[in-house]
Structure formats: structure tokens, C-alpha cells
């Protein structure tokens, strides 16, 4: 524990800027994954443990697309769209068969999926870790701002993830699709009786969740090493985020993600050996004080 270091960081603008951007970048990438987890839980009441594997697939799809095309844009889109399609297949072929089963049975299916996907990745892309490489456009010196260091690539990621977050927010709250999705979360059979195909709604939610996770995987690929099993740590953090933010709340996922990002970045200064534990402490504190999470609705 090093509280004096934390204190001196908090009064130095350069430290605050550097750590805040690093917190934001960790948090916002996490948000893309966590938002999908939260959405899928909110609408389908499925705790999608396989979502980390979605993120992994996104990174690998992006890797292969980048190898073939050399374009980072195409790579990210390939990651997003590829996983979106995979999400639909996963929902239609597997998860839809255990709707109405106990939550734990659904988790069992997700767990089986993780086992299979990790192995498949190993077979297709090999057991060795892969490195994507920084796209040439971002091979630039970081920007200095009030003494703080902000890499160009991270600035790009922050902007793009914020745009995605805003679009997602608009989609969920303002569009007819979003209204239907939220209605299906509350009362699917009524939605169906109004002439809306809930099967399509469910599949589309998995598609959206897959798209977000795939985009996250693709966007992060230049700065993460790709290995089978890389989804594990992000899924645990995503669950912390969704629990802190409130299961089912996209806004909560955003706040929770940024919170976790900041806890990590400032925590690594104040509590270098206990940053991981800090996240769990935070989750426990939030759950004890507000059991349904910051943005969650009070359950009975």
C-alpha cells in the first residue's frame, strides 16, 4: 500500500491526466464487452459466461482479416461482424434450447462453449500467442498534454468507444427496436402476442452483444497479445462491471466500466499489489450498500 504516492499523484495534473486516460481506455474497452453481458442478461436473463470467448474470437477474426487485408478498419469490422454472426448462431443453435431452464444450466452450456472455443482457436491459430502489430497510422509519438502522456491510439480508442456507447444508448432508448428490446426484457410473451417475433429479438440481442464484444476484440487487438483463453480475465471483469452498474442496465455498465478502469489505474499507484482485490472489494461494497447495483432496479 502506498497512499502517499496516490496522494501526490492526485495533486499532480500530469499524473491525473495520464492515469485518467489509462483508466478510461481500460474502462471503455471493458464497457463494450460488459454492455453485451448486461444487455443479454437484461433481455434474456441469461448470464452469458461465454461472452469473454466472443471477445477472443473478435480479436482473432480481426487478426486474420488484418493479415489478409492490411487494413485496421476492415480488421475491426471483421471482428465485430464475425462475432455478431457467431452470436446469432450460438443463440439459435444452443442457448435458445435452454431458455426456461435454471440459470445454472445455461451457465453450463456457456462453459462448454468456452472449452470448445478455446480449443478451436488453438487448432486454427495455434497454441502460441499472436501479436497484431500497431497499424502504421497510429505509429506516432504520444501527445503531451499538461505534462500528461496520451497515446494517439488510445485517444482514437476512447473517441471510437464513446461514439459506440452513445450510439448504443440511442439505439436502446430512442428507437423502436430499443423499445421492443426493453419490452421483451419485461414481458416477452406479450411482445410476441403483439406480432413481434421474439425469437428474432433474442437473436438480435445476441447479435448486438456479439458485435460489441467483437468490436472490442478487434479494437484492442493491436495492444493485446492474442492467446486461447484470453477471454477469461475480461469476462470476470465484465461481471464485476455489470454487477456494480446493475444487471441489465447499459448506462450502469458504462459507469461501472469507467469506475473499474479508474480503480485499476489509480489503484496501481496506491495499491500496486492489491489492484485485483480492490475490484472485488468495490463489488462487495456496492452490493452490500445497494444490492441491485448502482443503476439496477430494486428487485423483490
Amino acid at each position, binding site marked *: 500500500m502506498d497512499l502517499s504516492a496516490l496522494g501526490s499523484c492526485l495533486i499532480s495534473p500530469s499524473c491525473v491526466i495520464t492515469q485518467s486516460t489509462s483508466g478510461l481506455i481500460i474502462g471503455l474497452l471493458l464497457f463494450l464487452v460488459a454492455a453485451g453481458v448486461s444487455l443479454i442478461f437484461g433481455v434474456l436473463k441469461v448470464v452469458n459466461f461465454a461472452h469473454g470467448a466472443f471477445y477472443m474470437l473478435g480479436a482473432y477474426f480481426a487478426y486474420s482479416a488484418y493479415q489478409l487485408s492490411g487494413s485496421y478498419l476492415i480488421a475491426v469490422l471483421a471482428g465485430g461482424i464475425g462475432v455478431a454472426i457467431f452470436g446469432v448462431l450460438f443463440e439459435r443453435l444452443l442457448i435458445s434450447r435452454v431458455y426456461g431452464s435454471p440459470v445454472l444450466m445455461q451457465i453450463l452450456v456457456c462453459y462448454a462453449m468456452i472449452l470448445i472455443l478455446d480449443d478451436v482457436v488453438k487448432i486454427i491459430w495455434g497454441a502460441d500467442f499472436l501479436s497484431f502489430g500497431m497499424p502504421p497510422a497510429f505509429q506516432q509519438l504520444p501527445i503531451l498534454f499538461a505534462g500528461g502522456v496520451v497515446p494517439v491510439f488510445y485517444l482514437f480508442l476512447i473517441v471510437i468507444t464513446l461514439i459506440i456507447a452513445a450510439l448504443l444508448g440511442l439505439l436502446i432508448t430512442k428507437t*423502436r427496436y430499443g423499445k421492443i428490446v*426493453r419490452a421483451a426484457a*419485461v414481458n416477452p410473451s*406479450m411482445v*410476441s*402476442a*403483439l406480432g*413481434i417475433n421474439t425469437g428474432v429479438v433474442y437473436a438480435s440481442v445476441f447479435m448486438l452483444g456479439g458485435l460489441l464484444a467483437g468490436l472490442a476484440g478487434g479494437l484492442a487487438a493491436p495492444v493485446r497479445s492474442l492467446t486461447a483463453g484470453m477471454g477469461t480475465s475480461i469476462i470476470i471483469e465484465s461481471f464485476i462491471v455489470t454487477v456494480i452498474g446493475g444487471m441489465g442496465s447499459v448506462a450502469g455498465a458504462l459507469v461501472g466500466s469507467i469506475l473499474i478502469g479508474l480503480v485499476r489505474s489509480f489503484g496501481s499507484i496506491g495499491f500496486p499489489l492489491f489492484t485485483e482485490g480492490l475490484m472485488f472489494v468495490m463489488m462487495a461494497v456496492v452490493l452490500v450498500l445497494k444490492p441491485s447495483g448502482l443503476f439496477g432496479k430494486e428487485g423483490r
Partner: protein
Amino acid sequence: MTTTTNRTIFSAENIDVFYGTSQILFDVSIAVSEGQTMALLGRNGAGKSTTLKALAGLAPPKRGKTTVLGTEMQRRKPHVIARAGLGYVPEDRQVFPEHSVEDNLLIAEKKGPNGEDYWTLARIFEMLPMLEPLKGRMAGRLSGGEQQMLTIGRTLMGNPVGLLLDEPSEGLAPVIVQQIGALLRKLRDMGVTVLLAEQNMHFCLGIASHATVIDKGEIVYRDTIEALRANEDVKARYLAL
């Protein structure tokens, strides 16, 4: 008065419905023709709701068939049946509590099976004026009566050719029940085809033209509602009023 033709809008033919292993409906047949308001009467647990659910696709029959505008629907999902033109208003209202009144209506917006687009937000508010000032309010905060109006309006937004109404008077204060009755009369006068499930025959009297009585999952009586009103035997045996 209503324009009743002989064209059947929707029907159930000899359907058997099961919940799990227990059979709820036995060989039930019912047909509602264009412009008709049919009352489906019976005690609680007699099978009224189940009949409506079977027609709406929410409780698929094991045997027999259901039709909407002549097309077989017994194997179809609820949304397909809704799109074929059959609107369903559930007994326990089931508004989307965290959506605004307006959003509740907009979610259900669609054209009818033949491209009908009579019902719009404006027309719904015209017919249900008490909802308009509440359009921004969360539906969960409405009173029971307002919620009942909203669910009827919501179903109408889908421009259905036929309407299934499950006990719209249930659990409401007498004053509200009177308002619901007035609304249903209005719909009848517009020529909307309705199957109205009710326990309360008196409520149906000024609304429905025909009545079907169901008991223990079987249809036991069919006639005009006036004939039923006069039939003390049927009333005593199956409605106990």
C-alpha cells in the same frame, strides 16, 4: 348497428389443449364472423382464458385447428397469428410498466394483414381521451382502469381484424367497469370483430350479440345473448348467477 356478414374472421375447430399432462380444453369449436361480438362465458377455470390463448397461439392445441381469415394457425407462433390479424388483450393487462404510455402504443404499431392502417396514435387518443394527457407517463404508474384501456388501445395499434378480450372487467372498480363497457360498445359499433371472455353475463349484455358458454373445458351452449339471458337453466347450471 353492426354489419355482420357470414364471413368467419377467426375460429377454433375441435381443439384439445393440455397444460403439461392435464387436459384443459376438450374438442372446443368456436367461430366468430365479421363484425360480430361474441361473448365466451363460463366460470373461473372453465377454459375461457385457455380458449383465447389457444387462438392467440400462447397455448397451442394438441389436436384440432385454429384459423384466422381462413388460414390454419394451430402450429403457428403467437407473433405470426398476431400478424395474421388476430389481436389479443390478456386478462391481467400486462402493460410494459417502464415504458411510457406512448411507447406502449408505438411498440405495437403495425399494419393489418391486408395493409389496414386505420389505427394510429391520434385515433387511439381520440377514442381513449383519458390516455392522451398521460402519454408521457410510465405505464406502470397508471391506475388499473387506465392500464386496461391502454392494453386495448395497444392491441388496436396493430390494426387487427379480430380481437380477443380476456375479462376486461376483472378486478376493476364498478365505475371503471362501466367505462370499459362503453369502450367495447364503441368498438362494436365500429364493426370490430371481438371474442369477449367474461364471467359476468350482465357486463356482456349490452355489448355482445352472441354468447357461447364453456364449462369444464367443453362448449355447452351457443346462441344469441338474448336467448341465453332467457335461459334460466343454462344460467343456473353453468353460470350460477
